[in-house]
């Protein structure tokens, strides 16, 4: 059953790669990330599937703003921009890439080590995660308890990429003006009315994912993205949302410092062993801090894109 799903997965990927018109790429990528989320779900990884779904809507929004900018800057202006992106598959031009890819694939498959995947580490984690870290969700207890180093550096990586986006995008002097910036929907139309109903539900569901992350599926990352998607909807409803980037950027840096402090305080200094009853408090607070960090990072990237790029 999983093989049929994977065949869909590869066909939608090939569709997205060879799409000629630029508009179709976004729709094909949305279908591709939908089917890949279902594949992750079938592989027994609902957390990763949740992260994939939340992230695919964000990458769709980023791509939309980027394509709008590309259209206004390149295709409408310069004559030499081609209408479609079809790679003229002449045999002479296509042979070297195909040969190179096949050689690489052959080398890769040849050098795969023998033997099945040994499950020593998996059994260790599955038995020990309730006593050592506490909480029902093995995945959350791993990236918050056993391997908290990776989470620290991942949070640092997210902070660096947010700072990179903030500084690389164009610096237009005037902040967002007062007119209907989103210009997406008229204020009295039915979809704006329903988005007003859906938005609080999304925020509450994001909070639920964060606070409930160590027990059921969910966690700091997925909850953070769900909370950040509330601000996307808010951009659709209200005319303008003047976000003070400086404050949010500094606040995100402080959240990262808090994460590093909390992790080092609890795990490296060994509070975990001395006070076993604070474990769930540590898990929940760590999840909340990560959720704040991820949501602030994505809010900054989103508003950096929408506010400054769309002009």
């Amino acid at each position, binding site marked *: 059953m999983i093989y049929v799903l994977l065949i869909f997965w590869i066909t939608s*990927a090939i569709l997205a790669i060879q799409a000629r018109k630029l508009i179709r790429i976004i729709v094909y990528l949305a279908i591709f990330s939908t089917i890949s989320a279902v594949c992750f779900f079938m592989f*027994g990884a609902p957390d990763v599937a949740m992260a994939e779904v939340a992230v695919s809507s964000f990458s769709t929004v980023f791509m939309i703003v980027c394509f709008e900018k590309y259209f206004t800057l390149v295709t409408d202006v310069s004559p030499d921009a081609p209408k479609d992106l079809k790679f003229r598959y002449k045999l002479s031009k296509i042979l070297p*890439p195909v040969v190179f890819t096949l050689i690489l694939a052959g080398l890769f498959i040849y050098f795969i080590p023998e033997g099945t995947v040994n499950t020593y*580490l998996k059994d260790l984690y599955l038995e020990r995660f309730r006593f050592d870290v506490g909480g029902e969700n*093995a995945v959350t207890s791993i990236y918050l308890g056993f391997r908290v180093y990776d989470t620290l550096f991942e949070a640092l990586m997210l902070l660096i990429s947010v700072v990179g986006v903030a500084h690389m995008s164009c610096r237009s002097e005037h902040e967002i003006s007062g007119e209907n910036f989103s210009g997406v929907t008229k204020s009295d139309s039915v979809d704006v009315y329903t988005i007003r109903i859906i938005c609080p539900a999304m925020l509450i569901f994001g909070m639920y994912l964060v606070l409930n992350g160590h027990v*059921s599926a969910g966690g700091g990352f997925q909850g953070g993205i769900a909370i950040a998607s509330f601000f996307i909807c808010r951009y659709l409803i209200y005319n303008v949302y003047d976000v003070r980037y400086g404050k949010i950027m500094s606040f995100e840096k402080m959240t990262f410092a808090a994460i590093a402090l909390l992790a080092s305080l609890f795990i490296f200094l060994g509070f975990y062993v001395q006070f076993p009853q604070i474990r769930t408090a540590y898990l929940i607070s760590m999840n909340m801090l990560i959720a704040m960090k991820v949501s602030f990072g994505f809010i900054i990237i989103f508003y950096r894109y929408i506010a400054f790029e769309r002009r």
Partner: protein
Amino acid sequence: MNYEIVEIFAIALFFISLFGLITSKGVIKGIVSMIIMEIAVVMFFLSLGFQTGILPPIGAELGDNVADPLPQALMITAIIIGVAVTAINMTMLIALSRQFKTTEWDILKKKNME
């Protein structure tokens, strides 16, 4: 050389998107192929040790056919970093199209020469 058929799908998609990256005329197709490559890598990690009817490692009673939580924990961070990197790619694309007015590799090479 024995591995699950599921992993072959992930490896195949990785090399298909690598082919897409090589033959991409514009920067945009390159970014699209990179997004697909990231998801293919994530899929490969998750498909290790897959049996049909596998259950997630969450909840009180864990049966025998339970998925491995370790690669899942790593892959969540990998996906989020993938989006952050994509955001940076697109910012660079916009800066590129603003300065050079095109995103075709060969035209960029010519413009870069003079």
